[in-house]
Structures are given as structure tokens and as C-alpha cells.
């Protein structure tokens, strides 16, 4: 029974796994209204996590932590099949490090480089038996799939802003379908949804500053520092700096007094 792995699970099948790499796939349900590219990153991270969990006999699982560089290249669409790839560079009971990518029809949609995820006891989030059973079905190609019904648009309120700075309040829902899956024993806001909200914040700041289109499509040094519970109210700040002619946006996300996320966004000029 893998009913847990429905609303926020983005690996349908594991095609191959070896000591240093894992390949898999995920079909975005055709009926969803959209699929933020950050969720393709979630899919790559989940694939890497299956590798780590398998290697530790489902005793530990990695959490989202550090990503040195992310390139948001494409915009996957409902109905697309994501080809997922991850290379594991290190795995210990404390952390796993990996890089990976997702492709659609051979075209890259997202690249993750230098990811480091702290390993935590898997039982804190789900039952080992449930994880093991799901893994076996992913390997056999027999997992129940297609349960993703989309995610609600972030409940964001843009606060006072200027050409160089934009703030926002992000209200994490008290209840949402994805909390049932992320995670059954400890619901927390998925880090990739926080990144999606960051992308919207940066887009709003760039819209004020630049008449020409700039797209927030590259992230450096993203770090998720703490779990964000359902119902949390997050304060987000984006500060624009210009290095040469290139804009760089530092983003910091706070929950109460604590910084829970930070990243540096490096927008790219969109081609006409």
C-alpha cells in the first residue's frame, strides 16, 4: 500500500541504480493546471533521496539543505515525462551530496549542482516499512502514480518595495494536500515550494526595476536552514545588487526571528 506517496511524490519509476548514480522518470499528470519548474528540482532530489535511503536500508533519509547552483532552463508542462538523473558523489550517515538534472524529450529543464542534504532518521518522517515498500514498487515499475493534483499558488502579499528591494509575506497554508506526503509523520513546507515563492518575489522586484524582461532562472548558494511548519507566516526580502551590468538578487526568508532560507538569484535576460 503506497497511499502516502500520492500528493507530493515525483518519481514514478526507477530505471537504474548503481553505487554512484540513479535514473528514473516521472509523468506530470495531464490534468494539472501547471507544474512550477522548481518541482522538477524536487523530482531530482526525491530520486537522489531514494538512492540514499536504499543505501542506508531506509534508516536515514536526506533533507533538502544546500544547493550550490541551480539552472532553471525550461518550463515543464502537464503531460510531459521528466527523465530524472542523479549522480551521488558522497553518502555518509550525516550527509549526501549529489548533482542531477531533469529532461523532457532530451531537453534539459533543470540542472542541480553541488547539492548537500543532511541525513536524518527516516522514522521521524515516515515508516521504514512504507518507504521500503514504495521503493520496491518503484524498482518493479509497479508503483501507483498520477496522484499529484497540483499545488496552490503561494499565498503571497507583496509589501513595500523599491527599485532595489522587495519584501513579501508568505502565508504557508495550515492544511494542504501536499502535507500528507511531505511528510506523513511531520508535515513541513517543501523547500522547493519556498524556492518557487522566492522566484515569484524576485520576478516582482525585477519587474519594477527593469523595463526589459529578465527572468530569475539561476540560483547560487541556496540554503534551507530549518523546517517550516503548516500555518507559518514567512517574511521574505529580496535585495538587488548590480554587478557590472548583471543584476544579482539576494533573498532571505525568515520565520519569526530565524532565517529559514537564503539564496542568491542571478537573473538572465530573456530572449525576445
Amino acid at each position, binding site marked *: 500500500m503506497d497511499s502516502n506517496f500520492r500528493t507530493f511524490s515525483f518519481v514514478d519509476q526507477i530505471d537504474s541504480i548503481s553505487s554512484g548514480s540513479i535514473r528514473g522518470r516521472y509523468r506530470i499528470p495531464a490534468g494539472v493546471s501547471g507544474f512550477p519548474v522548481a518541482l522538477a528540482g524536487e523530482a531530482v532530489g526525491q530520486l537522489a533521496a531514494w538512492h540514499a535511503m536504499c543505501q542506508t536500508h531506509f534508516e536515514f533519509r536526506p533533507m533538502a*539543505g*544546500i544547493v550550490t547552483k541551480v539552472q532553471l532552463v525550461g518550463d515543464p508542462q502537464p503531460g510531459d515525462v521528466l527523465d530524472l538523473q542523479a549522480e551521488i558523489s558522497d553518502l*555518509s*550517515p*550525516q*550527509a549526501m*551530496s549529489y548533482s542531477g538534472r531533469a529532461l523532457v524529450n532530451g531537453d534539459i529543464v533543470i540542472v542541480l549542482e*553541488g547539492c*548537500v542534504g*543532511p541525513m536524518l532518521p527516516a522514522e521521524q518522517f515516515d515508516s521504514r516499512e512504507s518507504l521500503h515498500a514504495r521503493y520496491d514498487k518503484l524498482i518493479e515499475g509497479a508503483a501507483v502514480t498520477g496522484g499529484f493534483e497540483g499545488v496552490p499558488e503561494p499565498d503571497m502579499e507583496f509589501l513595500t518595495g523599491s527599485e532595489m528591494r522587495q519584501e513579501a509575506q508568505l502565508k504557508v497554508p495550515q492544511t494542504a494536500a501536499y502535507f500528507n506526503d511531505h511528510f506523513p509523520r511531520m508535515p513541513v513546507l517543501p523547500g522547493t515550494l519556498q524556492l518557487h515563492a522566492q522566484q515569484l518575489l524576485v520576478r516582482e522586484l525585477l519587474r519594477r526595476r527593469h523595463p526589459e524582461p529578465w527572468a530569475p532562472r539561476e540560483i547560487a*548558494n541556496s*540554503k*534551507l*536552514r530549518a523546517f517550516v511548519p503548516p500555518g507559518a507566516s514567512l517574511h521574505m526580502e529580496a535585495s538587488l545588487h548590480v554587478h557590472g551590468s548583471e543584476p544579482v538578487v*539576494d533573498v532571505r526568508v525568515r520565520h519569526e526571528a530565524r532565517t529559514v532560507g*537564503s539564496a542568491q538569484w542571478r537573473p538572465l535576460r530573456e530572449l525576445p
Partner: protein
Amino acid sequence: MDSTQEQINTIFPKVAELTADALAIDIARVTPTASLIDDLGAESIDFLDLVFRLEREFNVKIPHGQITVDARGDLSVAEFEEKGVLTDAGLERLKAFLSEVPAERFKTPMRVVEIPKLFTTETFCKVVLRQQQAVAP
């Protein structure tokens, strides 16, 4: 083999740069004796980040808990600590090992889990040099 101050000085600028990047702070704040936790605000995820950057930059492997293991040296675990608190011998060994840390930062009694609060950028210079020496032919 202990690292020489000259060796430490040689790699300090790069280690300081990586520390500043990991903590997203101005490199001017990264002085040799600044505590990463108490003075620079580092959290556990930052140590993970810093170690990852050091491993890539210097092509070394830094196992989790390596600094404490190295500090303990040839003392047995029982000689080094008792129920999570450093013994007198353990504390003296730690003070000698972390010679870059100002003496007033060592507490008495001192718990093992508090050891990371002592770490400075120079501490990480020394662990990099030790790991390099460990794999040198």
C-alpha cells in the same frame, strides 16, 4: 604531524573566503580567532556547507566529527570524556589541540557537544592540512 603556522597562513585566505561564502558574510569578519558559531552565527547546516566546500577546494575528505577524534588522539574515549563531559585530561588535551582558540573560551566543566562552539577558521585550516598530510605518500 602538526601543521606549521606558515602552512596555516598559506591556506588561510582561501579557507576564510570559503567560510565567508558558506556563511554569506563579509570576509573581513572572518578573523583567525573568530568563533564560527558565537561570533559569525554559523549553524549546523553551515558546517556541512563549509566542509563540502573545503573538500572540493582542497581535494580532501573530512569525516563528520573528525576534529574531536583528532583532538582525543591516543586517549581512550573513557579517558577523554565521561557521560558527555570532558575529563580533566580531555580538557587539557583539547586546549592543547585547539591552541588557536583563546583560553577563556574553554569552559569548566565542558560538554562534548559544546566543542564545535570553539571552532575558528584556523581550526578548519588545521583539519585541512591534517587530512592532506594523512593521504600524502
